[in-house]
């Protein structure tokens, strides 16, 4: 077992705790389950690992209709049927009609790859359970050809979840879990400077102050995320809003808050704050 050492990349700043979790998951050959609010860089993590360790990245984007089987392989019966009809192809070799999915490909790869299973919580509730066996053994059986494929190089598996749905216990037991906390003010400043390199320091401070105040309001259901903050700053700058009026008026709040109830709650809290 070799030690892979993920250290983060120039553009992806990985916290020490996150680096440890990635490396433990790679060494123990267990999938890494990453959870966190939208905009905390869960998906980008897999790209950073692939870049850092110089491995190929395979991505399996999960949709509500995704089935575990599709990740392994699909037997294209319709194509075979069609070929049989015109008789211009040799259809006795079934393996040419086996189309491997990202999971299957990652097991068949001739070197270690990174497999990203993105947004696993989008799928049906039973979906994670259907993957248990394959992720444990890193092998699968193709019924149509009678062939059993075992991964020569166990992929580094990164699974992301938005926590929309709870995941089954049996699945969780097999994973290494990492929770990416929402960035604090200092980290957020760095993130914003990537998107708005020339933002005025005063505006940035005022915006961050308001943003974190707002996220801490207990009555808010849908907390604004990083991408909404970046949009808000863009709106404020384009609108030429002064730093003082950000404090007094909270302009363009609709960019941050998408739910009417939340918007009202913020306005009420803001009024309270100004009276006190």
């Amino acid at each position, binding site marked *: 077992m070799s*030690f892979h050492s993920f250290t983060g990349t120039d553009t992806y700043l990985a916290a020490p*705790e996150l680096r440890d979790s990635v490396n*433990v998951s790679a*060494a*123990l050959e267990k999938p890494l389950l990453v959870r966190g609010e939208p905009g905390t860089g869960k998906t980008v993590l897999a790209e950073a690992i692939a870049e850092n360790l110089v491995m190929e990245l395979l991505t399996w984007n999960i949709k509500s209709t995704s089935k575990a089987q599709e990740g392994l392989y699909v037997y294209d019966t319709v194509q075979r049927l069609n070929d049989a009809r015109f008789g211009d192809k040799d259809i006795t070799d079934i393996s040419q009609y086996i189309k491997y999915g990202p999971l299957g490909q990652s097991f068949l790869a001739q070197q270690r790859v990174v497999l990203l299973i993105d947004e696993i919580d989008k799928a049906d*509730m039973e979906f994670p359970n259907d993957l248990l066996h394959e992720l444990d053994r890193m092998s699968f059986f193709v019924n149509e050809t009678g062939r059993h494929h075992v991964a020569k190089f166990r992929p580094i598996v990164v699974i992301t979840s938005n926590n929309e749905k709870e995941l089954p216990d049996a699945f969780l*037991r097999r994973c290494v*879990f990492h929770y990416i906390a929402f960035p604090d003010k200092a980290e957020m400043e*760095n993130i914003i400077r990537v998107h708005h390199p020339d933002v005025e320091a005063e505006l940035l401070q005022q915006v961050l102050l308001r943003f974190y105040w707002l996220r801490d309001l207990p009555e808010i259901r849908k907390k604004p995320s990083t991408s909404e903050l970046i949009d808000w700053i863009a709106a404020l700058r384009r609108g030429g809003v002064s730093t003082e009026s950000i404090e007094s008026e909270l302009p363009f709040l609709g960019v941050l808050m998408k739910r009417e109830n939340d918007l009202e709650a913020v306005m009420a809290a803001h009024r309270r704050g100004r009276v006190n």
Partner: protein
Amino acid sequence: MFVDFFYHLRGYGLKVTITEWLSLMRALAIGYSRADLHVFYNLARCLMVKTEADFDNYDRAFASFFMGVENHFDISDELLEWLSKPELPRELTEEERAKLEALDLDELRERFKELLDEQKERHDGGNRWIGTGGMSPFGHGGEHPTGIRIGGSGGGRSAVQVATDRRFRNLRSDRILDTRQIGLALRRLRKLDKDEGPEELDIDETIDSSARNAGEIDLVFRPPKRNRIKLLLLIDVGGSMDPHTLLCERLFSAAHKANHFKKFEFKFFHNCVYENLYTDISRWKGEPTSEILKRLDHTWSVCLVGDAWMSPYELTHTGGAIDYYHSNQVTGLDWLRKFRDRCPNSIWLNPEPRRIWNAPTIHLIRQVFPMFELTIDGLTEGIDVLRGIRPNRALAA
């Protein structure tokens, strides 16, 4: 120490399993975090705690376990001993025994000894594995390459001190029922039936038939099987239901996400059902209840959710509705009966525990609808009525 730590975590309500605990032993044995409590903190957490809601419990457990020993944390001797004579928290199941054998302790022990020897020669400067200040990716002594420290832990503070910060306090969730559990229960709410509508291509039959047809394609279609459950969800909002808002939201979102119903509708009411039902929680947009009733028939199942706790006249008197500007001509109880008569497979779910179901209005409503607790067990029982496989016993009363 290892077994004690396992029990200590369980004592704090963390559902750590032997499988996960063995992973930790394996990670330690291959050289992770021998002498760095910061690394051990994260290692044990990422392998044994699988939801951020439990991070706070973990922090408390960790701090109380390692209080006082944080400055001389070195588990090499204990680990070596454990690897030679593994002690386990309790009797193993078949599956766990297999996991333990798969660990190959002898090999791990040899590897670990090698690591220790290497470490003795090189002290803490090696790059093979985690020390304090090495070049390996593990460990916390070194500076972050960018000079920014992310995610706390560090700055000369011990792992125990960091744990006592209880950074994850806000993520706790002492929840009763989560959406997944409700979703799984609702999944049972189905009655399969051959459906009209466009037919589906039956691949297996098509292949069989084409083969018999000497390879000439013969497409076979069949009518799809669909769930024929139609569900109307009526939820009490406002007033005494406020403490149950979150629970109702979960039920609602689980039902909304369940895409296996033939039809699904939801409406809101306040305390009791009268002339109008509402499509929004603030009860502005209404629809006449009589119109809704016209759409319903015995193929629909109605699920009402409320605490059924109100003044008796709200239920039994005309003009008794709680909103003073609203004068109802038909009593609340009569409206409820109309729903029951139209859709016999209907239930009432009550978020309050059964032991305090003693309001007079609860007794009255239970004569119309069978009432169940809004818990997994209650929901599971109720679903049998909604599916029509258990008779609505309240009808007899």
